[in-house]
């Protein structure tokens, strides 16, 4: 009996190896795995943005979403749960696993060692190895700066210098701090008198309070514009309810609040997902990081990885032109947000004028971060250690 079983298993192995051999036609057999923090059926927010990015990238590459994409969704940031999700996906035979939430970091690192034949790609994280584990993130602060310009122009039109910002966290994470700072500098480029009030949730998703916080910023702080760094469209819905305006995040929130929403800082995740899938299809798992050229992908406006959503009709005339001109400066590499050069944007008759001037970049305690004329803050600081607010930002 034992012999028979051994024979059977050996035969099975042979067959499965044969299956591996015939998978040279990379495209047809390529399987993508994804682990989401929220539901794949979401119609807005963080998971929605990633899911759209992955499916769009697959369509661009001619992959079949129905057959070649495997998803485990609603996975909380709990190591055991993430490892279980990874086991499920590996069992389904995926070639690459995208984990989209920051808290998946340790599980993905561990799994990358456990499954060297599978590629692990972790969004918003900072860990990696030299073979099959990388991370990816984008210069969201650049898109935030552009949405700040739209908000600043609106604040000039309404004459209300108070801008509210519902944030998941504040200076605890460089991701949120750099977003807040980028947005505030964009607002100030247009309206130097503007103040940005930040209200922290202490959680990445907390719908009940996302709504309550936005209302508080509007009622008590008199904010006329509500920006956000949180998952749901509640802040924009609250802004519309109070007849003020807002800038969303992650996805175009104009359908959620058509009368309030100006423009949202968005991610074109498909840009990265396409690059990663293309690379993965043409190499062994162990070569992935080498072929990608870097263990930490960090794209911006230039790569079209981040952007602002189409401007709504609530935007002031000339917003389009102002954003276009500033975008050009960034894309050409002539200027970046956190540098010792300040932009000043004025709009007259729908035409924008952008002028540069050397100025200290100061935090809100008056310390100089970058001296006038100095080069931009390093990427490592923006992604890892930015723990201050720029001048004009205050916690509420």
């Amino acid at each position, binding site marked *: 009996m034992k012999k028979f079983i051994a024979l059977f298993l050996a035969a099975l192995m042979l067959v499965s190896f044969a299956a591996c051999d015939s998978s040279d036609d990379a495209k047809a057999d390529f399987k993508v795995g994804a682990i989401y*923090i*929220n*539901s794949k*059926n*979401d*119609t807005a*927010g963080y*998971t929605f943005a990633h899911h759209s990015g992955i499916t769009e990238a697959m369509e661009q590459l001619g992959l079949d979403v129905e057959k070649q994409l495997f998803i485990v969704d*609603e996975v909380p940031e709990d190591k055991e749960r993430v490892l279980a999700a990874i086991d499920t996906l590996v069992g389904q035979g995926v070639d690459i696993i995208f984990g989209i939430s920051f808290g998946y970091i340790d599980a993905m690192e561990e799994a990358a060692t456990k499954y060297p034949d599978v590629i692990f790609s972790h969004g918003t994280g900072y860990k990696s190895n030299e073979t099959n584990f990388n991370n990816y993130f984008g210069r969201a602060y650049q898109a935030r700066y552009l949405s700040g310009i739209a908000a600043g122009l609106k604040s000039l039109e309404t004459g209300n210098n108070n801008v509210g910002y519902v944030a998941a966290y504040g200076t605890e994470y460089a991701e949120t701090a750099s977003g807040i700072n980028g947005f505030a500098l964009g607002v100030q480029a247009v309206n130097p008198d503007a103040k940005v009030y930040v*209200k*922290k*949730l*202490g*959680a990445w*998703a*907390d*719908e*009940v*309070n996302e*709504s*309550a*916080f936005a*209302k*508080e910023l509007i*009622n*008590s*702080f*008199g904010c006329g514009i509500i920006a956000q760094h949180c*998952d*749901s*469209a*509640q802040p924009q*819905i609250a802004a519309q*309810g109070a007849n003020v305006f807002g800038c969303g995040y992650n996805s175009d929130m104009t359908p959620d609040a058509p009368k309030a929403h100006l423009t949202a800082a968005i991610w074109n995740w498909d840009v990265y997902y396409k690059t990663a899938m293309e690379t993965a299809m043409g190499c062994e798992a162990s070569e992935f990081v080498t072929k990608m050229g870097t263990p930490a992908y960090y794209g911006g406006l230039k790569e079209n990885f981040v952007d602002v959503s189409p401007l709504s009709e609530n935007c002031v005339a000339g917003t389009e032109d102002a954003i276009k001109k500033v975008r050009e400066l960034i894309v050409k590499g002539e200027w970046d947000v956190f540098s010792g050069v300040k932009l000043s944007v004025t709009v007259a008759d729908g035409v924008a004028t952008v002028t540069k001037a050397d100025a200290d970049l100061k935090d809100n305690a008056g310390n100089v971060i970058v001296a006038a004329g100095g080069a931009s803050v390093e990427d490592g600081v923006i992604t890892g250690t930015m723990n201050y607010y720029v001048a004009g930002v205050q*916690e*509420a």
Partner: protein
Amino acid sequence: MDKVGVITSFIHNIVLLNIPLLYGTVGEIVVEKSGSLNLGVEGTMAVGAIFGYICGCFADSMVVGILTAFIAGALFGLLFAALTVSLQANQNITGLTLTTFGLGIYFFVGNGLRASGNWPTISESLKDGFSDISIPLLSDIPIIGNGLFSHNVLVYLGIAIAIFMWWYLKHTKFGLRLRAIGENPAAADSVGINVKRSKYLHICLGCGIMGIGGYYMGLNMSGSFNASCWINGYGWIAVALVIFANWSPSVAIIGTFVFGFFNTLRVAGGSLALAFPDFLGWLADVPTQLYQALPFIITAIVLVVTSIKNKRGRSGLPAALGLNYFREER
């Protein structure tokens, strides 16, 4: 900074954000007064929320929403009653099971509808129905007027239900009988009170009230369905508030607002600090995490204080709470 505005908004939020707790608490008091401990408040509210919201939106009527939420909650209560009153199942375990089950139904129905693309949105008229109604004269009182007397219709309904249930329990024949059952079902049975029928009725009634509280949460979230449940732990706090209120629906109103005060500090702390920098400035330095934990810290303190107090004086705790009544064992 508009100092008066900040205080008014703070008071307004204490009421607006915490009324679902009152529904949960009053509902649970009615259930517990019958001698049944239902820990499934969270699940019952979730069931009321999802069905109330969906039916209310499809019918485009808040009355339909309230009725559906009540019926859904009551049916869920019927399940609890059938398991614990007729089948004599352990009440604690049944309650916990119903929490899980209720949340499961909530996500099953909600996710299913969304996946099929039929998720209903709140119409403008329904939104208007949920907007604030100012009570004449009272709402003109400076500072507190707008905070206390300008609210949506479900706030008034919640307080009306609490007052009505207080009167019902304290001053009616049925209330007296219910309290007798909660204290000593065998004695109540011996004088000819139908224990089973009364338990069934009041468990369903209490759970129906919880269901309306869930519907409130759904409307207040503008019906935006995401990965976190609308009820957000309020059902659990309601269970603790029952003890704080000493099983009295009228004290529950005060309890809700005392508790709401701390719950709302998270929203208003920053504004208060900025408006009154001299003596409330320190609120700005309180870490967000402490604000998040505050409702639960307060709950723990309240439980300790009230249980010490109840030991000394008269407690409203029904003597037979949590014990199943089995007639043949009399």
